[in-house]
């Protein structure tokens, strides 16, 4: 799996999983280049941190929680964009709350969660979510089991997210449209 190459008289070795053309995350070996000018440069790809909200397991879990809160455990993609975006941060949820309560009446809430399409694709492939012919996303039996296990009052998983979703009550597509859109557009 390892690869190596030469730049002039110097060689570069790339460890498994490495990307030699990228400088981000590359770690160079501690060789004194002045003492040994001909020694190879060893670059090794190092793991980089990724925020929890971008991790697939967190995204899938919150997606099922959002669907569990929706009537019939089913929602449109646009609804899911708003809900999954809202629970990403308390600031996002505050914005949604203000629209939901009509504090910002007249202004439609339009948001886009760039991770959602990927989350839905993986959730469908995992058998947690199914897409109906009209494009709505619904929880499968396994998805429902997961969501209910997550929402079990005896555990403390995803407490803030669950509380935020609970604050919205049971969510219907029509009700959400009424609250968040200016002229019934959602």
């Amino acid at each position, binding site marked *: 799996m390892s690869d190596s190459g030469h730049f002039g008289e110097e060689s570069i070795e790339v460890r498994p999983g490495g990307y030699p053309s*990228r400088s981000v995350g590359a770690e160079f070996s501690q060789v004194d280049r002045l003492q040994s000018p001909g020694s190879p440069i060893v670059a090794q*790809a190092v*793991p980089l*941190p*990724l925020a929890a909200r971008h991790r697939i397991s967190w995204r899938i879990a919150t997606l099922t929680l959002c669907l569990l809160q929706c009537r019939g455990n089913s929602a449109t993609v646009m609804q899911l964009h708003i809900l999954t975006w809202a629970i990403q941060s308390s600031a996002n949820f505050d914005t949604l709350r203000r629209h939901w309560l009509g504090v910002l009446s007249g202004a439609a809430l339009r948001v886009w969660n760039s991770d959602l399409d990927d989350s839905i694709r*993986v959730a469908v492939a995992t058998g947690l979510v199914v897409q109906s012919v009209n494009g709505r996303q619904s929880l499968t039996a396994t998805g429902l089991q997961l969501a209910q296990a997550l929402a079990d009052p005896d555990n403390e998983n995803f407490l803030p997210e669950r509380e935020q979703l609970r604050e919205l009550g049971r969510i219907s597509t029509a009700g959400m449209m009424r609250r968040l859109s200016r002229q019934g557009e959602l």
Partner: protein
Amino acid sequence: MMQLSDVRLEVATTVDRLSVSATFNSELNIINAPNTWGKSTLLQGIVFALGIEGMFSASRQAPLGEAMMRVVDGPRGRGAIVESSVTLTLRNERGSFMRCRRFAKSLDVAQTLVQTWSSESLDGLGSAEQVDTIVRETGSAVRKAGFHKVLADFVGWQLPTVPTFAGTEVPLYLELLFPLFYIEQKFGWSGVAPRVPTYLRIRDPLRRSVEYVLGLSTLDRIKQRNALREELQVLSGQWAAQRGRAREVAAAFGWTISTIPDSPTGFAQRRAVRVFVHNNDGFSELFEAQQQWAAELDALPEGQVTAAADRTAVSRQELEDAERELRRLGASARAAHESISLVQADLDAVSSRLSTIESDMRRFRDIRRLRALGSTVDVPLLSTNLCPTCEQELDGRHVATGEVLSVEGSSALADEERTTLLELRSSLESRIEVFRVNAVAASRDLTEWRERIRLLRDELAGPSAAPSYVEVASRLALQRKVDNAEHVLATVETVAEELDRIARRVDDLRARLAALGDEEQSAEDRATIQDFRDRFRDQLLAYGLSSLPPSEVTIDELSFLPANDGVELAFDVATGMSASDTIRTKWAYYTALLEASMRSPRAHHAGLLILDEPRQQETARESLAAFLHRLGGESASVDSQIIYATSEQPAILAQLVRGISHTLVPTPGLHLLSAMT
């Protein structure tokens, strides 16, 4: 310790008045009867009389069958039940007796009432005074008239309080303890772990129950540690209050105090509290300034005030100086306010980032929990992060190197960042505090200088013969400063004494925390747990456990669940244990707990084990024989009472219990109630 002397079921129907009794001895009692005889009704009667049916579920329905609740066939034919009750007689370790009667159905007596009689002898119960108590109602575990309080006192238990999910503390209810003493027929034998109720919202209910029954000091140690930490918290609050008091009293006069740490320090780290005064050269110590002001005051001529005309030239020069000083102070105040705005902006940014980091750390904890859930609900993706289609790592797509840092690594990194941000915030708060003090001091100085300029102008424009306003005002201002300094220095001295007291107490608490150690269990606890474990393993070997090597099965010291290679055997399907091995594990668990507890002087086992139809058909005959020998031998030898209900063929049972000391509880007739007279 609690042993059952007898139980009596009474039923009044529309045609008959019926009753049946069973008497129990110490050691092994066997109730042998066919499946339909009513063994479970008899045993459930015991549960009902003790008011512990909440160990099965939150339901308020009596756990008794039709024969006690609706209709029964008596000698005079079938009759609807008008009244039914269960009376149970108990004996404790001191040899005292308590009788309790609870009505399952009655027109006059509520199910929540338990009538009790207590006496030092069995015969004395007949003439004992009836005391009514409540059960299955709020307060029945703690109130004087609560049956479970009375029962716990009778047994000699002081039930500890345990934490709930709501963050409160409640008593360790008897409903949590009795699942360790009673295994009911329908659901009690499923799974390898005892079924303790979760609806009571108590954290780690099984763990807390087993700890109490084994007499472990874990809970005590946790509580002691929490009490010490709580006191440290209180001291922290007192420290902050004293710190605030010193700062406020100094700030009231535009002065500032030396840095007092945010949280309490030990006595060795205590530093003197100093008060500083803002002046042209920066800051000087208040006590020095006080001496200087006092000297200036002394230098003023006693009793005489100069006439305004006599100091005109001086006043003009002073006015010029004062106006220059006013401009300098104005610039200084503006600079301080600008610095406050800048630092406040940094502080807001740091606080916002901290909030995000803390939220991310919580989410990483959620992700770690998700891994365990992934195997429970059979969604491997949650545990592995691998794409179900292409088996590629999914999170790696979102980072530049294609290789994502593990959840633990990311969480640790976030924790490091949090630590840095907390320090940065603390530093910014200190800086902003300094700027605020500067701003306040400059503002106060501005007021004083404005007042001085006004006086100088008035004096220069006023009558020549009038006494100098400036001289009078200076004298008064100096006197006021000297007095204020005295007040502040006295207050700060009191604060310093109080901080010293807190620091000494902090040293003491920290020493006690260190002596307590980080481990949750004491050496005695570990010995008791090891005894429990050894007895459990011995029995697995004796009963012929075959799904796993008995030597590799143990009791987890945190969850108190049977475990193999670090995995709790909570789910027989997940661990691949056969049904017969699940039963063997269960037998071994309950008897090992009984034996280990009864041998520990600090334990709180009831000394009672009730086994309702322990699935003998699902195990090999040799295993059952070994189990019965254990019950009649080692288990019964520790002053315990075992009630074993079985539908085994009498002839086979006779072979199995040959040579085992036991009492066969009579079970005449086709049904329990057919024997009623």
